Structure formats: C-alpha cells, structure tokens
C-alpha cells in the first residue's frame, strides 16, 4: 500500500516526530511504500542539519535523513512554514539573502500542493501532530 505522512510538530518538543519515524519504519518493514513525508507547522524543524542532540537520545533529524536514503522517501518541508521558522535551502538562501543554509540531506523545500498531491496519490495519509 502507498502511504503518505504529515508531521506537524518539531523534533524533541513533541513525540510526534518519533511516532512518525517508528510508524514509517514499521510500514517499510511490512512491505509498504512511503510516497512522501510532508513537514508542516513547526514540523519543518525536523529538516535542520544544525542540530547536535545529546548522544544518549535519538537523533531525530538524522534518522529522517537515513530513512530517506535507505528507502527512497521524499521528505518535503513546506516552504511557507519554513520561511516563518527559518529552514533554508540553497534556493531560499539566494532568494532571501541569507548567509547560509541549514536543510538536512534528503529533505527538500516545496509548496503546500505537495501535501494535497500526497493525499491524492496515496492510499492512506496519516497525520502526526499536537
């Protein structure tokens, strides 16, 4: 079956990201496809590569990145939500004249249409939030 996921909260502050990661892992293990994970609201903060979490805890941002690489999962950060919160890729850096960028490997910034498309293209959309 084809799944898409929406993650609506940032890493660490809420369990949503962790539950979504564990759900994605279990779905992949059961042979399902993850079409897309869409990060919205504070969820966009899952896509930063500037974090240095404690070594004795899950590295949430990196775990997403590894999952994406291992299972070819499309990780999309909402551009409007990212602009409010400060997640920047190369295009955003140039466009908005920032000194650097902090998007994690495996994530890309795109529009809200990607969420609607995920709903249309997938058999199930599962939302994790607050």
């Amino acid at each position, binding site marked *: 079956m084809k799944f898409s996921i*929406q993650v*609506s909260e940032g890493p660490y502050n809420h369990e949503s990201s962790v539950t979504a990661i564990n759900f994605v892992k279990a779905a992949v293990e059961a042979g399902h496809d993850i079409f897309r994970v869409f990060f*919205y*609201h504070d969820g966009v903060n899952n896509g930063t590569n500037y974090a240095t979490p404690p070594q004795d805890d899950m590295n949430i941002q990196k775990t997403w990145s590894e999952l994406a690489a291992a299972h070819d999962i499309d990780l999309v950060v909402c551009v*409007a*939500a990212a602009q409010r919160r400060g997640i920047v890729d190369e295009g955003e850096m140039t466009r908005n004249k920032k000194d650097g960028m902090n998007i994690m490997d495996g994530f890309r910034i795109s*529009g*809200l*249409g990607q*969420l*609607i*498309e995920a*709903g*249309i293209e997938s058999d199930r*959309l599962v*939302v994790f*939030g607050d």
Partner: protein
Amino acid sequence: MSDAKKFMYINRKAPYGTIYAWESLEVVLIGAAFDQEVSLAFVDDGVYQLMKGQDTTEVGIKNFSPTYAALGDYDVNKIYIEKESLEARGLTLDDLQHLVWEDEDEDWAEKDSIRVVTSAELAEIFEQQDITLSF
C-alpha cells in the same frame, strides 16, 4: 470529478493562540486548485475561528479572518459547524461570519456555505471522506 477524492479539513483549535487555524486555511486555499471535493468542519474551539469582528491591531499580528470570506470564490462551500460545539460555548450562528458562494448552475445565485450539523450527522459525513487533514 469521478476520480476526485473527498478531502475533509477538521479544525478544532482556536485562532491566534496557535497558528494551526491560519496554516490550515493556507492549505485549503492551495488545495482548492486541485479539483478535489473539499469540506471543512469546525468543531470544539475551532468554531471560534469564524467569530465576527476579529481585530488583531493591538496584538500586532495579522488578522486572517477576512480570508474565510474568500472560500466561496475558491469553490469551497461545504462548511460544517458542529451544533453541540456552538451551544457548549454559548454561541449562535449569528456570532459567526456569514459565508456564501455563488452557484454557477443557478445563474450565480448566492447560497450559504455554512451548515450547522449535529455530532451524529457530522460523524456520518466524516465516514464518507477519503482524506482527513487535522488542524
């Protein structure tokens, strides 16, 4: 429209205290371009999103409430309000914005977008949806 999916947006949170109400509306507006069947439900504190007369000047943040009036132009005209949520808060339909749309099939007659429904009716409507987005 036979391939269209039924999208339901459930709005359960009050505006301004958190951004969910506003960012939900942003999804609805973008989603309207996709030719799917769209419904919105306002339940619990979500009904406060449609309160008339919102004025955020003194707080200094954007008042996004006028945007709800544009939903009709985007062909978003199935807006369900849970009766029980209104009543629990001492509100009536008169407290909320009057949202309308123009029906192309009836010479652009102006029609109400808002339908007040009971919990039981809303539960049935939820059962008919393909995709539910929660805010």
